[in-house]
């Protein structure tokens, strides 16, 4: 334990004399429950996994640069594509989404923290340990190799005999726990913690998008949880949910996976919609066009998102009626999405548009995402899908929506909120270089893949024969991937150079901030708002600016602020689950070592892990932690 300084400022007599433990260094990060610090943890952890997933992508593209390449063997290639997809979606972009949600939502709704700061920390650590467990597979006998969808029977013990898929099921189970916790936390935060005057229809669009995203997480993640439990039981305990020979049904996995999996893609893209809806009005100096239709469209997308999962399964033989119904419901999603696209365009129309680096990413997002949407409608047509299925056309489609859509949105959000998160403006010049290399590289990589798919190149093949007209387009695609890599390196350079500058960003560094986060210092103090602001309309800060005010009207007098205590329990709980996961995974192994076999085969390792987790929960339940207060004297700097 780090040294505990007594209280912040012991000199004046404090009315609520709680002493507060102050940790420093690593201990500060492990024990923090501050949403702004957890946001930064999410960002670094997500960035790390994003980097790993990116390296895997580069290796995949190097293997495919020419026909009959022998850079990788088939097994390694399968492991790479599986881990690339899984890592990018669950461990790369979702944490960065959570980073932005954590950093921005409490500030945008005028709250001092999230509803459950303890759970916030627990969500992060379970995600991190789940991600570490999944990636340890590389050095512990081989990564999962059944594709990111882990379709049965390929992922059953019969066809995937190593521990690879176990790492997938257990790792995602633990990481998914963190996501579910995070989603519930944001629902509670947005419902209960909005500043006075901020009704639902005055919430910034990013808050709305995050709210709907959290609702989708709440409803979709239980499906994958159940699916992963069933697959784990099949693989480790010899159950037969997906085992045809014992009366199971492998297609059941596809249903369960996509009941989760399709809403999951909306979990990914809706926050990006929210970010774009913040960035574009700010840099057009206009309020968002059609705010209420945006809200409605977001809710509609979330609802329809649960009604379309079988469009991933057109070729499994559901029959013409089911295929037709799911075709129609899928095409319907284009309607609310189209509303959004037009609203962004109309927001820019007639505005005083400034092409700063966040706005470049936001503007680049619109046509790129629309192209992904158009191929989505093409894929929704069941007869055409029989041709597109499992070709590079599908690969091109989902990379257009996830990379061209979501990752562009995340870049826009990171450039936009970086000064608020870190107090330092990212270099505009390097930001623009990032944009141009990234977007040109992106289109080079994935545009040609549409045609590769239409010409018949299948996805997930580790090599191809020469002279099928695949050679040139694959070379172009690999060059594009390299350029995207260069864009990422420029972004990292930008972060590095910026971190060496003094933290001198203004409260409202872009000058045209519209929402509450720009009314407080960059980075904000621990308690965010000295006085909770009074919200008088949509775009609360902009409304005050247009009324000639320079600051928000406070909704309360200055008073002591109640703060949650830092705690190491969430970290310990996650370590416990991590150990229990390992114990369970290797419970049937013969280690050739009496002690190890004894520990694992009798579930003792699992028991130790669970003991740590439940012990921490017991401590949490029995020990009343009332938090601590920051007194008005400290707020005023006296």
């Amino acid at each position: 334990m780090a040294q505990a300084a007594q209280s912040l400022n012991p000199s004046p007599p404090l009315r609520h004399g709680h002493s507060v433990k102050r940790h420093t260094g690593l201990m500060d990060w492990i024990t923090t429950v501050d949403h702004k610090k957890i946001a930064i943890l999410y960002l670094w952890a997500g960035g790390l996994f994003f980097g790993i997933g990116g390296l895997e992508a580069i290796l995949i593209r190097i293997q495919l640069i020419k026909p009959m390449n022998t850079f990788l063997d088939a097994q390694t290639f399968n492991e790479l594509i599986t881990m690339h997809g899984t890592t990018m979606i669950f461990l790369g972009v979702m944490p960065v989404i959570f980073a932005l949600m954590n950093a921005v939502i409490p500030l945008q709704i005028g709250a001092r923290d999230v509803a459950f700061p303890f759970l916030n920390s627990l969500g992060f650590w379970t995600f991190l340990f789940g991600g570490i467990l999944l990636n340890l597979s590389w050095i512990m006998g081989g990564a999962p190799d059944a594709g990111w969808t882990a379709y049965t029977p390929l992922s059953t013990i019969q066809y995937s005999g190593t521990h690879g898929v176990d790492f997938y099921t257990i790792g995602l189970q633990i990481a998914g726990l963190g996501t579910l916790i995070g989603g519930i936390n944001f629902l509670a935060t947005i419902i209960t913690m909005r500043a006075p005057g901020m009704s639902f229809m005055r919430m910034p669009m990013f808050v709305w998008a995050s709210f709907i995203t959290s609702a989708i997480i709440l409803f979709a993640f239980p499906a994958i949880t159940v699916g992963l439990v069933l697959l784990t039981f099949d693989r480790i305990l010899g159950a037969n949910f997906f085992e045809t020979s014992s009366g199971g049904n492998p297609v059941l996995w596809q249903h369960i996976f996509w009941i989760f999996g399709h809403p999951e893609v909306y979990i990914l893209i809706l926050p990006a919609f929210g970010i774009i809806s913040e960035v574009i009005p700010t840099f057009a100096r206009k309020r968002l066009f059609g705010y209420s239709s945006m809200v409605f469209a977001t809710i509609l997308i979330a609802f329809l998102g649960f009604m379309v999962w079988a469009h991933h399964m057109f070729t499994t033989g559901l029959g013409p009626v089911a295929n037709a119904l799911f075709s129609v419901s899928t095409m319907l999603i284009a309607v609310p999405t189209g509303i959004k696209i037009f609203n962004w365009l109309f927001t820019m129309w007639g505005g005083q548009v400034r092409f700063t680096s966040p706005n470049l990413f936001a503007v680049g997002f619109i046509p790129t995402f629309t192209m992904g949407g158009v191929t989505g409608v093409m894929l929704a047509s069941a007869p055409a899908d029989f041709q597109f299925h499992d070709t590079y056309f599908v690969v091109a489609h989902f990379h257009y929506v996830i990379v061209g859509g979501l990752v562009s949105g995340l870049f826009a959000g990171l450039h936009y909120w970086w000064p608020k998160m870190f107090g330092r403006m990212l270099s505009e010049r390097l930001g623009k270089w990032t944009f141009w290399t990234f977007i040109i590289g992106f289109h080079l990589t994935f545009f040609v893949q549409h045609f590769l798919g239409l010409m018949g190149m299948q996805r997930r093949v580790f090599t191809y024969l020469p002279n099928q007209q695949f050679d040139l387009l694959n070379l172009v695609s690999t060059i594009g991937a390299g350029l995207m890599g260069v864009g990422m390196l420029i972004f990292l350079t930008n972060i590095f150079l910026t971190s060496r500058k003094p933290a001198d960003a203004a409260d409202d560094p872009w000058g045209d901030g519209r929402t509450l986060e720009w009314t407080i210092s960059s980075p904000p103090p621990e308690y965010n708002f000295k006085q909770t602001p009074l919200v008088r309309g949509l775009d609360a800060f902009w409304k005050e600016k247009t009324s000639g005010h320079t600051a928000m009207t406070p909704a309360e007098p200055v008073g002591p602020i109640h703060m949650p205590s830092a705690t190491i329990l969430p970290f310990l709980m996650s370590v416990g689950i991590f150990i229990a996961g390992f114990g369970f995974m290797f419970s049937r192994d013969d280690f050739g070592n009496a002690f190890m076999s004894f520990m694992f085969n009798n579930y003792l390792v699992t028991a130790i892990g669970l003991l740590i987790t439940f012990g921490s929960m017991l401590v949490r339940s029995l020990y009343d932690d009332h938090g601590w207060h920051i007194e008005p004297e400290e707020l005023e700097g006296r």
Partner: protein
Amino acid sequence: MATEQHSPSDGAVKHRHRQEGPQRHIVVFVLSVVLTLIAFAAVAAGGVNATFAVILLLVMAVFQVILQMGFWMHLKDKGHLLPIIFMLGGFFIAGTCIVMALYWVWWD
């Protein structure tokens, strides 16, 4: 919906539940027990047709859920619109999964 939910600071005004007497609680409790007894009796009696028993159990279960959610989880009270919406959303999606599993996986 919006006006009922927001702003933690003026929560004191909002949460002015009218005190319910114990009578209603007792009535609901007895109802719950009776519903459970009917379900048990239908199976234990033995003479009841199996199909009828299953349907009866499901109907009893629906009433039971309504009682539990409405009274003990306070969904009938004011200010519970969002919990109700989320509950219904959950039922809807869980129902979709059940229909999927029945029609496409087991009976196909």
